[in-house]
C-alpha cells in the first residue's frame, strides 16, 4: 500500500448535524415530487428533486452526493430497485440512507426492496407523520455513521503519529521511507535521508526537567518541519532522534536542506519557559538511490550521524554510500559539509 500512510492525516468530513441534510428525491410522479419537496423544505432539509432514475444516478456519481435518498420504486428507465443495487455495489466511504417509496403493498416487493439495499420503505399514499419519523430515523443512522468515521480517522491519526510532536511515528516513517525508495526506483530518482539528533538532550532533561525537555522536542520538530520542503516527510525516529525523508533529492538539495535544519535549530534559542534553551542538532545524511535496501541507507545515515557527533556536534555529515554510488554522488567519504 504505497500511498496509504501518506493519506492518513485526519480528514475533515462534513458535519451533518450542523448543515441541513441533503435529500435527493427521485420520483416520476409530479404530484408526489412536489409534495415531498414542499414537506422536506418545511422540515429544513436541503432538497434536490429529479424525475427519473437516470438523472438520480448522474447526481449519485458526482463527488459530493446527497446523504439521504428517497427513491420511487417504479420509474421509467432505471427504477428505485436498480438504483439501490448500483449504489450498494460500489464501494463508497459516504453511506447513503435509502428510503424506497412504493405504491405496492405486496410483502415480497418490500422484501426485494430491502434486499436490494434499501434501508427503509414507505408505501403510498404515505402519511406525513410517518414520513417525518422515518426521515428522523435515517438521520440518526447517518449521524451515528459520521461519528464512527470521525472516531476511526482520529484513531488512524493517533496510530501513525507521535503524540508529543505530531510528526509521523517511527513505524509510519519507516513505511514512508520504504515506499519512497520504491517510488524513486520506479521514477529513477534519488531520495534524501536525514537522521537528525538533538545534541546533549539528556542534560537538558536532567538540568531543566522533562517538561522543558518535551518543549524542546516539540519546537525542534516544528523547526525541522518548516525547514524541509512541502513534499518531504518528517518523523520522530526515537527519543530525541528525527528522520527526514526528502523526495526527489539530489546531493545539492540534500546539503541545502540539511544545513537549513541545522541552522533553524541552532540560530535561535528555544523558548521553553521558564528557560531559554540553546539547542543544536547533529545530522547524518545520505542520498539513497535504488541500489541498496532501505535499512542499509539508514545504517549509513546513522554512521554519518555518529561521525557528526564525534566531530563536535552541531554539524552535517554526508554518509558513506557503497563506493560506486558514492563516486556518482560526488562526495568524499564522511564529508563534513556544515558546522557551526
Amino acid at each position, binding site marked *: 500500500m504505497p500511498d496509504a500512510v501518506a493519506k492518513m492525516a485526519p480528514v475533515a468530513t462534513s458535519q451533518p448535524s450542523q448543515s441541513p441534510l441533503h435529500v435527493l428525491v427521485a420520483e416520476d410522479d409530479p*404530484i*408526489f415530487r*412536489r409534495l415531498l419537496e*414542499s*414537506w422536506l423544505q418545511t422540515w429544513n432539509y436541503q432538497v434536490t428533486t429529479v424525475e427519473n432514475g437516470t438523472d438520480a444516478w448522474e447526481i449519485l456519481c458526482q463527488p459530493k452526493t446527497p446523504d439521504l435518498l428517497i427513491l420511487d420504486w417504479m420509474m421509467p428507465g432505471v427504477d428505485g430497485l436498480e438504483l439501490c443495487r448500483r449504489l450498494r455495489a460500489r464501494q463508497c466511504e459516504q453511506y447513503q440512507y435509502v428510503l424506497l417509496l412504493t*405504491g405496492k403493498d405486496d410483502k415480497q416487493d418490500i422484501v426485494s426492496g430491502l434486499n436490494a439495499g434499501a434501508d427503509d420503505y414507505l408505501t403510498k399514499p404515505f402519511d406525513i407523520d410517518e414520513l417525518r419519523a422515518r426521515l428522523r430515523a435515517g438521520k440518526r443512522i447517518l449521524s451515528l455513521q459520521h461519528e464512527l468515521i470521525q472516531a476511526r480517522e482520529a484513531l488512524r491519526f493517533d496510530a501513525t503519529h507521535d503524540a508529543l510532536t505530531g510528526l509521523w511515528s517511527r513505524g509510519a516513517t519507516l513505511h514512508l521511507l520504504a515506499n519512497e525508495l520504491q517510488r524513486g526506483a520506479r521514477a529513477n530518482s534519488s531520495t534524501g535521508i536525514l537522521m537528525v539528533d538533538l545534541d546533549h538532550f539528556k542534560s537538558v532533561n536532567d538540568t531543566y526537567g522533562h517538561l522543558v525537555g518535551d518543549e524542546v522536542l516539540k519546537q525542534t520538530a516544528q523547526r525541522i518541519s518548516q525547514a524541509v520542503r512541502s513534499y518531504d516527510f518528517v518523523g520522530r525516529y526515537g527519543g530525541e532522534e528525527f528522520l527526514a525523508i526528502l523526495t526527489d533529492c539530489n546531493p545539492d538539495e540534500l546539503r541545502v536542506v540539511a544545513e537549513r535544519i541545522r541552522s533553524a535549530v541552532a540560530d535561535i534559542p528555544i523558548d521553553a519557559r521558564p528557560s531559554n534553551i540553546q539547542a543544536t542538532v547533529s545530522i547524518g545524511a545520505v542520498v539513497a538511490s535504488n541500489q541498496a535496501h532501505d535499512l542499509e541507507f539508514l545504517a549509513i545515515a546513522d554512521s554519518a550521524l555518529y561521525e557528526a557527533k564525534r566531530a563536535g556536534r552541531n554539524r552535517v555529515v554526508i554518509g558513506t554510500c557503497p563506493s560506486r554510488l558514492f563516486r556518482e554522488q560526488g562526495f568524499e567519504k564522511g564529508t563534513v559539509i556544515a558546522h557551526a
Partner: protein
Amino acid sequence: MPETSITVATAAIETAWDPAEALERVGGNESLVRQLVQIYAEEAPKQLEKLRTAISADDSETVEMIAHRLRGELSYFGLPNTARKAHDLERLGRNHDLRNALQLFAAFEADLLIGLKAMERMLENDKI
C-alpha cells in the same frame, strides 16, 4: 342531453370528492393542496390518453405503470373508488391480460372525469 342526466352528473360531481381528506394528508396546507390539484388537473388527462393508447396497443407493461401511478395519486387525493378501478387495470397489466381492459377503462375514465370536475370546482372556490 336530457335534463335529468345533467342533474345526476352535477350531484355526482358534488359528492365525488371531499378535499378535506387531501387537506389533512398534506398537513393542513391549503395552498399546497391547490398546487397539487392544479398539477393533477393538468397531468391526469394526459395519463388517461396514454393509458387508452397503451390498451389499444396491447402494451400491458405501460398499462400497469400508468394505472399504478394514477392509483397512487387517486388514493392520495381521497378518491378510493376511482383508485380501486385503477388498481384493477394495473392488475390486468401485470397479468398481461388486457381482454377486459377497454371495458374497465370506460368506467374508470367516467369516474376520473367526474373527480377532475370536482377538483376544478374546488380550484374555482376561494376556500377549500
